[in-house]
């Protein structure tokens, strides 16, 4: 393999892995608090769109990223209102959030830019050594989340909400409040991850541009076994697989590219299947919490 191709693969692996990693670290915190955010993909999509809109009018990708994070935050707040406040089923709310995001971004996009798509090219983040600032950010985030979850009191309390919500509440932790904050953090990160796609690595928005990356981030959290560092490894594997989809031909691989699409999912399923039956998932994951009254 010549070094040019290797460099190309490394570069696109990092570009592919960055948004996955950012979204996955947000989701790790959310899941550790006991919530599955199936609406992650929708939040990323809204983040990507808001980032493009604001970058287009302010010419500042950084402001765009903030806008993306804020937009996804609003969606997360909506989702949390249903899952945390009303104890509605988390999977339902997540699916609906995805629908809502596709509808909102699609409708506004077509309204503003027409079906043919007048040019929506915007500035994008500057790159140093072919990566944007968000790639180191994702790595710092990983270790930040690791440290926060396992070395701080707040992290311990958050994990308690995901493992033993009743016990957490008994020891004075507000489960709804903790879960709400976790959701908001997850939303922020989803927004940044989405914005990376539209104004970080890319320079435009296209409909449905997340293309299921939110679901991949969910897969990463699972195959990383709810550990931020595990998530980092998984994100790199998924990123590499995505990079190989595009670079496989340059390598002269005769394999159909769908194998690279499918492989990480297959690996994740195998990890789940062959892993210990004692699930490493937070014990109360996905269960609505209701205060005993």
């Amino acid at each position: 393999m010549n070094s040019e191709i290797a460099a190309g693969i490394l570069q696109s692996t990092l570009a592919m892995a960055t948004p996955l990693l950012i979204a996955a670290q947000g989701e790790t915190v959310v899941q550790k608090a006991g919530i599955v955010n199936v609406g992650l993909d929708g939040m990323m999509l809204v983040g990507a769109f808001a980032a493009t809109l604001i970058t287009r009018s302010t010419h500042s990708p950084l402001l765009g990223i903030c806008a993306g994070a804020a937009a996804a935050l609003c969606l997360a707040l909506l989702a949390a209102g249903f899952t945390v406040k009303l104890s509605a089923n988390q999977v339902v709310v997540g699916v609906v959030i995805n629908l809502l995001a596709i509808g909102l971004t699609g409708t506004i996009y077509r309204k503003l830019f027409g079906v043919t798509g007048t040019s929506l090219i915007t500035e994008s983040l500057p790159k140093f050594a072919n990566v944007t600032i968000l790639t180191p950010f994702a790595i710092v985030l990983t270790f930040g989340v690791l440290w926060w979850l396992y070395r701080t009191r707040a992290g311990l309390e958050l994990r308690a909400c995901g493992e033993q919500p009743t016990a957490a509440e008994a020891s004075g932790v507000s489960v709804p409040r903790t879960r709400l904050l976790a959701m908001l953090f997850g939303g922020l990160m989803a927004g940044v991850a989405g914005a990376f796609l539209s104004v970080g690595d890319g320079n435009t928005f296209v409909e449905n541009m997340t293309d299921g990356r939110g679901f991949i981030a969910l897969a990463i959290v699972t195959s990383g076994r709810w550990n931020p560092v595990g998530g980092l490894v998984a994100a790199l594997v998924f990123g590499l697989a995505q990079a190989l989809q595009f670079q496989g031909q340059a390598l002269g691989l005769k394999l159909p590219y769908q194998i690279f699409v499918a492989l990480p999912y297959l690996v994740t399923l195998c990890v789940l299947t062959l892993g210990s039956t004692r699930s490493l998932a937070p014990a109360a994951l996905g269960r609505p919490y209701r205060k005993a009254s």
Partner: protein
Amino acid sequence: MSTESLPPISLSGKLKLWRAGLAALGYAAGFVVLLTVTFLLLGVAPKEGLVGLWTGAFGDAQSGRWYPISETLLETTPLLLTGLGVGVAWRTGLFSIGGEGQLLMGALAATALVKPLQNLPAPLVTLTMLITGTLAGAFWGLIAGWLKVRRNVQEVISTIMLNYLALSLVQYAVSIGGPLQEPNSPAMQSSAFPDSLLFARLLPQTLTDGIGTRLHSGVILAFLCVPVIAIFLHFTVSGFGMKVVGQNAEAARTARFDVDKLRLKAMAISGGLCGLAGVIQLLGVSGRLYSNFSPGWGFTAIPVALLGGLSPLGTLFSALFFGALTAGSGNLARFSGVSSVLISILQAVAVLAVVGIRAWRAKAKGGEAA
């Protein structure tokens, strides 16, 4: 916005019906308000928008009713079957989002049969395709069920992987040079099936002034699944067991229900219905498999099933509602420039309203939310 399935309240049947009717009316009124507001926001005259939506779904006296109604039924069909499927799993407490993958596996398996069986009589091939597709969907559902039962893997997570695996398989099969791709074609699609395999068209063209409608006999098959699943859920031991497991798996175990077996069964039935949806769509509408075969029926199935209160009859009504919205918004997009993705917003808000109201009422009563 048809049925209202709240947790059973100790009211006389008549009063309950009254309340359900009132609730349905309330939801319907709310929906019209929602539509009006959405149209205003998008700068479409609300009356024009509402009429456009209605005409697209049900037609008018002037341009005829058969064609729009046939389109509504056509759009309803895949949502109905996948909605029934998702409903069976969710009733059993399995929050599967794997309908999409199961549908694709059904379509893929059926397509794979066409060439090897080309020398058999057509009706036999069609029947084999229907059965194989259903079994393939059931198998895909069973994988998630097995992972849940034996390996304690959450179905939400495993079905996501299975969806992508199925999508990759379909895309590989119809990719350039793939095993099922149409030879010498630049498109990512299978060869068109022989007409003899396809479902017959139901409506004579005389009804629609010579405009061909797409309503096919597979639609009947889909609608027949409603009573079949309803009878299964309400009048069989397994159906009852599933309900018990869904309400409280631990209690069901204590009461000597075979929880694992019921969960596996539910996932198989759920997957089978979704697989069947794939084959029916294949044989009734597209006539071939292609890379973006499903526009997300398996995902929309979840709101459909939920709005229908996870009951087969309710799912029928909500699938009709979603089907009418889809057909109507297609028409709306043609004349008002309002994009058809608009319905995603409407569907989302409609479901959020119903889920929110239900959860709020359940919370007020201190019971379990749907």
